[in-house]
């Protein structure tokens, strides 16, 4: 069993990073949160664009995503920042995150008396948290505590031939060692759902998964639109992918060959009691998709890209892998691993799969990914409907 070194949290989870998160509950608090984070070296904020004038399940989704970010084991302490009159309330978010046992404080801009006072109050909380976090050291833990997010974006035909099967290899190995993986991007299941559905052990979860896929396709049909206007993307097509079915059939290789143990809603936490391969209902848009999986508890992300993309995450390391050697050479700042050697015949799938698995282990132990070294922190919350 592979052992890793990480930060033990109060609730028994382990982080592979030790972030101090300044979390705005709404778009109205986002700039102030950023200003607080700017006072404290190492503190990070997220550019929340939502959290007010949303209704029903759309509003809940924003709150669940923010709470999930706060609860993620990669976060050691949180300052929640709200405006006061916003739809997602700071104290409510703080209370939910506090269930993990980690230090959480909240600042409400209207209550403390404006931007400058909110910065002062928030920075004082954050400075103390930063000092406390600096005392924490990495301890050994079992790889079975890891939740791995599987993502692909800027796909081309090499993704389905090389990089996604490589991710599938690494995912199989992690699940074999007792860990969990999440396949996502419901749009990019259209055309491959029959193959994935057959791998669900539980009939109710299988039905839930198929309903998720049908809902996405029905949304395009209800709008009277051709899904092709957005999927595949212009870059996918230029790369050689012709249809959503072709894209989906390549995407699904990320999930390897293990059975699915469950279908999660966007940002729904992965169960610590039931480990294995999961599906999460996220859009094909990479940033929203990764944000949902990290909110669900993923500590690390592997991201396959044929065209090349800079995407990172504010609180989780993102390992980039391409099946396109031309892209690997063209975007050396962004891509960590080249699986194009599988297509050229220079390497075998299991060799690159082992390389990726070793990379996952090293990154969990603290090694920076290229996205981290460049400070990439893309963040986006999925929306179910328009803002009111």
């Amino acid at each position, binding site marked *: 069993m592979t052992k890793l070194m990480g930060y033990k949290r109060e609730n028994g989870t382990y982080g592979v990073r030790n972030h101090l998160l300044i979390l705005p509950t709404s778009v109205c608090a986002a700039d102030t949160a950023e200003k607080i984070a700017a006072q404290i070296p190492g503190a990070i904020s997220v550019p929340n664009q939502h959290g007010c004038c949303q209704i029903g399940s759309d509003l809940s989704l924003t709150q669940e995503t923010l709470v999930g970010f706060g609860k993620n084991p990669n976060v050691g302490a949180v300052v929640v920042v709200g405006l006061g009159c916003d739809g997602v309330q700071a104290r409510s978010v703080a209370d939910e995150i506090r269930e993990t046992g980690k230090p959480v404080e909240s600042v409400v801009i209207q209550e403390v008396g404006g931007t400058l006072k909110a910065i002062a109050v928030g920075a004082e909380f954050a400075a103390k948290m930063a000092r406390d976090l600096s005392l924490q050291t990495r301890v050994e833990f079992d790889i079975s505590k890891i939740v791995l997010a599987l993502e692909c974006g800027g796909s081309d035909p090499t993704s389905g031939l090389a990089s996604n099967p490589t991710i599938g290899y690494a995912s199989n190995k992690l699940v074999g060692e007792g860990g969990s993986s999440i396949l996502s991007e419901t749009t990019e299941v259209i055309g491959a759902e029959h193959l994935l559905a057959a791998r669900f052990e539980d009939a109710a979860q299988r039905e839930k998964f198929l309903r998720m896929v049908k809902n996405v396709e029905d949304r395009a049909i209800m709008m009277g639109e051709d899904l092709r206007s957005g999927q595949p993307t212009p870059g996918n097509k230029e790369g050689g992918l*012709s249809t959503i*079915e072709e894209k989906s059939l390549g995407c699904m290789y990320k999930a390897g060959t293990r059975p699915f143990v469950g279908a999660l809603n966007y940002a729904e936490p992965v169960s610590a009691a039931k480990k294995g391969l999961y599906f999460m209902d996220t859009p094909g848009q990479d940033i929203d998709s990764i944000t949902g999986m990290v909110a669900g508890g993923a500590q690390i992300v592997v991201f396959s890209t044929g065209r090349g993309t800079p995407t990172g995450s504010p609180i989780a390391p993102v390992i980039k892998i391409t099946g396109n050697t031309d892209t690997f050479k063209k975007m050396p700042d962004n891509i960590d691993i080249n699986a194009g050697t599988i297509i050229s015949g220079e390497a075998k799938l299991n060799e690159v799969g082992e390389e990726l698995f070793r990379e996952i282990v090293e990154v969990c132990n603290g090694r920076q990914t290229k996205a981290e070294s460049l400070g990439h922190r893309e963040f986006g919350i999925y929306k179910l409907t328009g803002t009111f």
Partner: protein
Amino acid sequence: MNAVIHINEKDNLVTCLRPIAKGETIEFEGKHYTASADIPKFHKMAVAEIKKGEHCYKYGEVIGAATTDLHPGDYVHVHNLESTRGRGDKHTKE
């Protein structure tokens, strides 16, 4: 390295692993195919007769339907292969 990859025996399309020029003949699995158009790297070529409306296969699965009759050696992409899924445009017309 082979010029093309035929992922599944059921597939009537192959993926080109390098650019194939119009008129170039490639051989694989004991047969010869002459490209009827320039085909970019990682794009697809037909390796069977596919009638208009018939399914195109890659990974052994349906990836869409031909919008015109396709012949072995044809470049197959968005100009002659269309998705059969998420077609709200077709629903409103029906």
